[in-house]
C-alpha cells in the first residue's frame, strides 16, 4: 500500500496536547518552534501545517 499522506513530525510548545505515533519535538517558545518547523520542513520535503498557535505538524503530501 502506498501511503499518500503522513504526519512526519509534531512540533509543539505544549506537551500536554500530544502523545503517540509521530516524533514529537518539544520547544521552549513560538520562535524556536518556527525555527524547528522550518528546518524539518526543508529536510523532509514536507509542509508545516499549523493546528493551533502552539502546535505544528509536518505532513508529507
Amino acid at each position, binding site marked *: 500500500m502506498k501511503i499518500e499522506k503522513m504526519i512526519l513530525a509534531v512540533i509543539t510548545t505544549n506537551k500536554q496536547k500530544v502523545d503517540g505515533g509521530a516524533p514529537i519535538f518539544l520547544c521552549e517558545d513560538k520562535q524556536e518552534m*518556527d525555527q524547528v*518547523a*522550518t528546518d524539518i*520542513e*526543508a529536510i523532509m*520535503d*514536507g*509542509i*508545516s*501545517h*499549523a493546528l493551533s498557535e502552539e502546535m*505544528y*505538524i509536518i505532513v508529507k*503530501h
Partner: protein
Amino acid sequence: MNEYTYPMLLGVLVGTFTRIAMLRTDYRQYPTYLHGKIIHIALGFIAAGLGSVAIPAIMEKQFTAVTFLTIAASQFRDVRNMERNTLTEIDGYELVSRGKSYIEGIAVAFEGRNYIVMFTSFLVTLFYLIYNIWAAIAISIVTFLISKKLMSGGKLKDLVHIEQEEIHFEGAGLYIGNIYIMNIGIPDRQKEILEYGMGFILTPKSFNVRPTIANLGQRQAILHDISTIMGVYRDSGTPALVPLIKRDLRSGKIGVFVLPQDRNVEKAKFVIGSVPILENAIRLPNESKANKGDE
C-alpha cells in the same frame, strides 16, 4: 511511371505538408527536438502514403490492399502509446506537472492528426483521379482549412469569467476570496506566499461548465500552463510553495492560486483564458434527459 504516379505524389505531398503544418512547437515545448519532429514527419509521410494508395488500389480492383489501412490504424495507436509514455516519464520531473488528462489529450491529438493526414491524402488523390489537378489542389486547400479549424479546440475563456482576487490568511489558512486553499504554518512561508502568490477566481458561465472546470485534470492543466508561461516561484523540496486550485462547493467557482515569477495580472488572465479545454474534461449535463425539462 503510370497514370497513378502524379495523383499519388500530390496526395503524399499534401498529406505530409498538412502534418508539418499541424506540428507546431509552441509554449508547450513539445515536440522540441529535431528527432522528435522527424519521427512525426516520417509517420505523417507514411500516413499520407497509405491514404493516397487506397484509391488506386480500388481502381485496380485490388480490394485486399485496403486492409492495409487497418495496419495503419494499429500503427498510429502505437504513436499514441509512445507519446503517452514519453510524456508520463517526463512529467515526474516537471516543477508543476502536466497531469494525466493533459497528457492523454496531447497523445490523442498526435494519433488523430495522422488520420487527418491519411484522409487528406485520400481525398486529394481521389479528386485528382476523378477530375483533375486543379480540383485536387482545391480540395487540399479545403481540407487544410478544415484540419486547422478542427485542431484548435475551445479555450477556457469561452467557459469562465476570470477575476483577480486578493489572497489572504485567516490564521494559518490561505484563502482566495472565500475559497480555502491550504494550511501554511510557518509565518515566514506565509509572508513569502503573500509576496509571490496571486489569486484568481474563475466563475463558470453556465451550469454545464461546472463539472468541466472542476475536473482535476483540467485544473492541473491550468496550473501547468500558467507555471510554464509565467514562471513559477518554486523548487524541488519546497512543497509549501505549490500552485493549487480549490473549488467553492456552493457556487462551483474555482480559486486558482499560483506563484508566477512574472507578476503581470493582465497577462496572467490572458494565459488562463488561453488554456485549452481538455476534451476528456468536457461534460454536458444539460444534454441529459433529466436536465432537459429544466430549460
